[in-house]
């Protein structure tokens, strides 16, 4: 599903890339920029976390005039005299006037690197509101945001995720240079589809999907090395052949009473001792309880 979102066939909306300190999602973000530029789209970047050179490094030179970098990296809080774009300008009105400066009327893709920076300085409801407006707004074709999810509280991450039409969570792969992307996509009808893929990003920022990670159950068994059999080289025999098993089962154990044994031992034949008692009329049969005098 990752290539479809990358190609933008899933039309517009808000794509959220979630990463953690184990694996940076910026490379994937750049792949998104690259993909949008190759589609001849105009891309606006709100760059808080990396410098312009670093972001443009690796991107195609020829499409640079369609990439507008709004430098919020050098001075995001207005500490120096001439801030270009500060974090407090992150609102619909300010952004619209910023985009108008470039005098492009075509719908464009807005890339936010990163939402974590904004969320650290502006309250969550305000950010969510602006994002919602951007998502709906006519000039913006799509919003792509990067979020360092391990920097925020879980509830905050959740509320931003709810706004997104697609959420891509990246984490390092088990081996090699592949990484795992967990994609959740919400279609307009409300249907939610999820997918997990192993992907790698080449030097020219194209993304190749290498397949799906195996199920958690099977990965475990895969990881476990085949254990050495401790019963392999024994001086005695632990296993039974069928014949031996048969013989073993035939053997009667002592002190276990089978029917044959019982009858053999408790043989009741004629002539053996028996007590026959027939009560006689003269029998001195005491009606009273003989133990009546006992104090029990």
């Amino acid at each position, binding site marked *: 599903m990752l290539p479809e979102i990358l190609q933008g066939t899933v039309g517009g909306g808000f794509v959220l890339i979630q990463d953690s*300190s184990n*694996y*940076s999602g910026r*490379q994937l973000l*750049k792949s998104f920029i690259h993909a949008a530029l190759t589609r001849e789209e105009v891309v606006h970047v709100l760059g808080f*976390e*990396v*410098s312009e*050179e*670093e972001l443009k*490094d*690796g991107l195609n030179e020829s499409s640079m005039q369609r990439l507008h970098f709004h430098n919020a*990296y*050098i*001075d*995001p*809080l207005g*500490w120096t005299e001439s801030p270009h774009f500060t974090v407090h300008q992150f609102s619909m009105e300010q952004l619209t006037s910023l985009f108008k400066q470039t005098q492009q009327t075509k719908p464009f893709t807005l890339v936010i690197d990163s939402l*974590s920076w904004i969320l*650290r*300085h502006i309250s969550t409801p305000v950010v969510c509101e602006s994002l919602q407006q951007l998502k709906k707004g006519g000039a913006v074709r799509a919003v792509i945001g990067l979020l*360092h*999810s*391990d*920097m*925020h*509280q*879980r509830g905050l*991450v959740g509320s931003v995720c709810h706004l997104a039409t697609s959420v891509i969570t990246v984490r*390092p792969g088990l081996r090699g*240079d592949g*990484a795992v992307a967990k994609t959740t996509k919400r279609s307009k009808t409300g249907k939610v589809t999820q997918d997990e893929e192993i992907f790698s*990003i080449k*030097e020219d*920022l194209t993304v190749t999907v290498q397949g799906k990670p195996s199920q958690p159950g099977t990965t475990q068994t895969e990881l476990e090395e085949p254990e050495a059999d401790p019963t392999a080289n024994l001086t005695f025999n632990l296993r039974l052949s069928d014949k031996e098993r048969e013989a073993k089962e035939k053997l009667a154990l002592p002190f276990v009473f089978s029917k044959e044994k019982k009858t053999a031992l408790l043989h009741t034949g004629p002539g053996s001792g028996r007590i026959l008692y027939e009560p006689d009329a003269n029998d001195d049969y005491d009606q009273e309880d003989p133990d009546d005098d006992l104090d029990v």
Partner: protein
Amino acid sequence: MFTELNSILNITPDNFKQGEFVLISDRHTDGSFLIHHFLSFYLRARCKVCFLGLVQSFSHYCAVSQRLGVSLVQAKEKGQLIFLEGLKESLSVLIPKEPNTGSQALDFLRDPSAGLRSLYEFVRASVSHTGGVEGVEGVEGGVEEWGPPVLLVDDLSVLLSLGVSVGAALDFSHYCRATVCSQLQGSMVMLVRCEAEEEEDDGDEEGPERLLKGLTHQCSLTLQVQGLPTGYCRDIHGQVEVCWRNRHGNGQQMQKKLFQYKVHDKSASFFARGTSSAVL
């Protein structure tokens, strides 16, 4: 300067990558030997160094550097080293003797919620222009030219103890990175101490763990120093995980190596796990 570490990181004082942000973190042990390493390394590389020493006194750093073969006093006189002695400066902020003495750098001590802008201004002033050295040009008859600027911080988590929020500390490091690493093509080394107990991964703790995570997102190389999980050992002082975080996109994103180390009197040895001379 530890030559063994240099070969691991593939750098020499004559040839090292510029624009790097090195993050040193320690847990269960003391990682300050790496700060001393980088201090002597960059001084030998003839960089202009700004050192924020918030943990120890100048004479302490001086004594250690002396052992590593670098004189901080000379470097300071030549204008190569700008040293902010946090212990001394903070005293003059908290107990002002005369009005308007000392720098404004530690103004955040009076009102930690105001942020670290004043400290950043100090850093920017120290690294950006060579004008600060004009007064001492008489040494060799002219101002010496220094290489790209370097900022060293020992250590950033002290700021948290002084009441600064994690967000403010991250803003400070962001500004320093933008100025030192990107604009001036210099380098930056920061140390962060983590508490001994690993905290629950809630994401809402306001502590060094969160600071470390935030800085990890910013930096290009991390050196994680840890005590041995099995406890103290005379021959192995701990392990250090070196992790290159690729910021310039080619091939593998992250590369990790794990070493054990032993700090000697004047050097440190690094070796693969289990290959200590005490074991073999």
